[in-house]
């Protein structure tokens, strides 16, 4: 194809997205669109999969059967979300093995929030309330994104996600209505998860490099700072209902703006964790890699069994 033809196709492609039409896997797409989507969808899938680890930590120690059943269901949902997203990503022409390889080798990133430890039961409440709350704000606009398989996966993910946030908030509420120690535990969890949750929206708009292109392709509908503000405005009143305090001395309602003002985010910490120096980066990746390696014989055995069944079917057919 000549440069002119490619440019022509690109213009038609952009116009199609501008008209709110969807792009499907076999349609022509610019190479950059394909690569950007592989990167974003796979990061999203990896985050769901790694996201099971901090919570899985508490399944056996959940304080009641009700909590245990809910947590198990939530972690199972996250596995499901990872699988929807991996298969959406594979429609772009990358294999599941390549995707896993990128995660396991550290080449691909996943959300930094999962590199923080879950040291008390209240962390499970805080994750549902804050981390899933932030994820919902990030994900809802993606239900209308331009790439069909991603948009369809996100519709399913968002439908399932709201239970996650509600169960987390209920855990927090129960702790806050409990003993002094339980309430202190809830406060401590909020103290540790608040700032990392704000970082989930990514760098400030001034620092964010992909925003303009992502807006065009509807991978983004609002900027990082807008989404972060939306999260803060929605979450602070929820903390008030719990009767615990958001750990930000600069947090204050601004009547003029109609939003909360808030303090400076520690971006050094953010970049440290992104670069692999968070409290649990090594632990998470090791857990993921060893689960994959230790499961190898099971995958091989299942494949060998399937082949044997297939052969047996072929021979009985011949004989009959």
């Amino acid at each position, binding site marked *: 194809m000549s440069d002119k033809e490619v440019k022509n196709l690109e213009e038609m492609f952009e116009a199609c997205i501008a008209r709110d039409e969807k792009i499907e896997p076999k349609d022509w797409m610019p190479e950059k669109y394909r690569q950007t989507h592989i990167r974003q969808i796979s990061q999203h899938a990896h985050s769901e999969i790694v996201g099971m680890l901090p919570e899985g930590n508490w399944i056996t120690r959940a304080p009641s059967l009700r909590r245990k059943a809910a947590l198990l269901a939530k972690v199972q949902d996250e596995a499901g979300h990872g699988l929807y997203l991996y298969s959406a990503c594979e429609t772009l022409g990358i294999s599941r093995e390549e995707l896993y390889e990128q995660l396991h080798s550290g080449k691909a990133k996943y959300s930094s929030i999962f590199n923080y430890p879950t040291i008390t039961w209240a962390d499970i409440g805080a994750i549902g309330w804050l981390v899933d709350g932030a994820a919902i704000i990030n994900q809802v606009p993606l239900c209308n994104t331009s790439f069909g398989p991603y948009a369809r996966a996100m519709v399913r993910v968002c439908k399932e996600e709201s239970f996650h946030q509600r169960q987390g908030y209920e855990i927090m509420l129960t702790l806050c209505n409990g003993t002094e120690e339980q309430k202190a535990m809830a406060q401590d969890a909020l103290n540790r998860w608040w700032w990392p949750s704000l970082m989930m929206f990514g760098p400030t708009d001034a620092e964010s490099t992909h925003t303009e292109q992502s807006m065009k392709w509807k991978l983004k509908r609002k900027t990082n700072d807008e989404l972060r503000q939306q999260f803060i405005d929605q979450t602070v009143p929820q903390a008030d209902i719990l009767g615990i305090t958001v750990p930000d001395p600069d947090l204050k309602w601004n009547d003029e703006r109609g939003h909360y003002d808030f303090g400076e985010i520690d971006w050094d910490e953010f970049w440290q964790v992104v670069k692999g120096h968070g409290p649990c980066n090594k632990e998470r990746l090791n857990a993921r890699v060893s689960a994959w390696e230790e499961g190898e014989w099971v*995958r091989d055995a299942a494949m060998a069994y399937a082949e044997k069944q297939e052969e047996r079917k072929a021979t009985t057919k011949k004989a009959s």
Partner: protein
Amino acid sequence: MSDKKKNWPLWEVFVRSKNGLEHRHFGSLHAADAEMALENARDVYTRRNEGVSIWVVESKHITASNPSDNGELFEPAQDKVYRHPTFYDLPDEVKHM
């Protein structure tokens, strides 16, 4: 086993959400064989009563049309307005036809 490692193939999943409706494409997944594909489809795509029946088919068995052929495949239908009821002129006295 052969020397080259074989990975679990890809399957497409179709779910009937209730009797009376058709099976609809829900997504895909990897599984070693059809039986495992059905079991995985149940866990991945019907955790909240989304279905009463599941079909799985290995993705490689699907033949898909190519978007670059869309012109010759679908455009001829566009100028055949006489396939639609509104093409025909009838007097107003004839109600509901």
